[in-house]
């Protein structure tokens, strides 16, 4: 009986760790938004861009970065990411899409652990930018940027630990467009 108890004492923490690991993994996976339902917009859009880089592809890329010191930061960032997904639709005329058509994406961001970062704006005139983060404890497990313009929809979804500042390092590469986001001012910025 004593041996059984001692064995249980050894096994239980391992099982708990495994369970915790699987919960964290499941949460990280949830940071991936379902975006394929937007594809119908492609028939009306003047241009559509769809980028899908999964964890496997990102890891291959990260291993090949780093020889150049300038790229070391991107390599460290990529190492932790589990996916980069971008969908962008440009329209010839204004209001060629209705808000209902992107509701399926916005609904995912209203639930499932996402929270909106307040104070983020776009530097482009007439464009609304909303940035959402998904967190597990102190750790960010995903980021979503929704840019809506009367003639353009852009959705960027990065799965993994990334913050808004690091996202700027990806802009212009890996299919992530230049988002022109004006970050909210921090206390430090305000003091200066």
């Amino acid at each position, binding site marked *: 009986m004593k041996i059984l108890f001692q064995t249980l004492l050894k096994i239980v923490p391992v099982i708990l760790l495994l369970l915790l690991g699987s919960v964290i993994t499941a949460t990280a996976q949830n940071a991936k938004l379902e975006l394929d339902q937007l594809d119908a917009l492609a028939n009306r859009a003047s241009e*559509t861009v769809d*980028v899908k880089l999964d964890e496997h592809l990102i890891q291959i890329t990260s291993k090949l970065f780093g020889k150049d010191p300038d790229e070391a930061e991107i390599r460290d960032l990529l190492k932790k990411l589990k996916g980069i997904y971008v969908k962008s639709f440009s329209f010839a005329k204004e209001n060629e899409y209705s808000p209902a058509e992107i509701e399926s994406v916005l609904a995912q961001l209203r639930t499932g652990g996402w929270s909106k970062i307040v104070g983020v704006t776009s530097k482009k005139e007439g464009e609304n930018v909303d940035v959402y983060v998904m967190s597990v404890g102190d750790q960010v497990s995903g980021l979503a940027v929704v840019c809506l313009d009367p003639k353009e929809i852009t959705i960027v979804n990065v799965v993994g630990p990334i913050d808004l500042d690091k996202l700027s390092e990806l802009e212009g590469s890996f299919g992530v467009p230049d988002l022109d986001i004006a970050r909210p001012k921090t206390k430090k910025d305000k003091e200066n």
Partner: protein
Amino acid sequence: MKTKLTLAGLMLALACSLPFSTQAGGDGFNEAVKTIEQFYHVKHQSIPFLARAGMKAARTAAKVRGGDWKRLAEAGSVRMVFFEDQTFDSRGQIASFKASLQRVLSGEWSAITQTLAPKDEEQCHIFVRAAGNKFHVLVITIERHEATVVQATVAPDVLAQLLKDPEGMGKSITDEATTRDP
């Protein structure tokens, strides 16, 4: 006599089944070509082997953005098909074509980037899959009157560059496969 007939029948059946089994168990390239043909009602043009080899030998380098001139595709690895002087009209259903392409290539191939401009009937689809310690890249480019399907084997460092700049590298791979050096 009966045995000979049975044997001949079996041989004939085997001979007939071979090309079909090769097609059925296809590797994505033929399926992508077939999808284009069925959706757009077009027919690809075969390029004679010698002409193709000549083109590949002539083309030795492509520009990697921000890097040195280097060959992208592994030597002898390029497969390609052209569609020339034909009409590619998606009839307002370009999203269906994209979905069909994704469906036939799903499983082994992963779509990296797909760009569509239906009003100009321009599209570029880039898919990738593992091939041992290298990678196969499938680049499908469609314009209003022509299209190209290129499959090339690339080293991991080329793939990394491709992922960093999918559109630019996809174009470079197609250029390398189809352009003759001056």
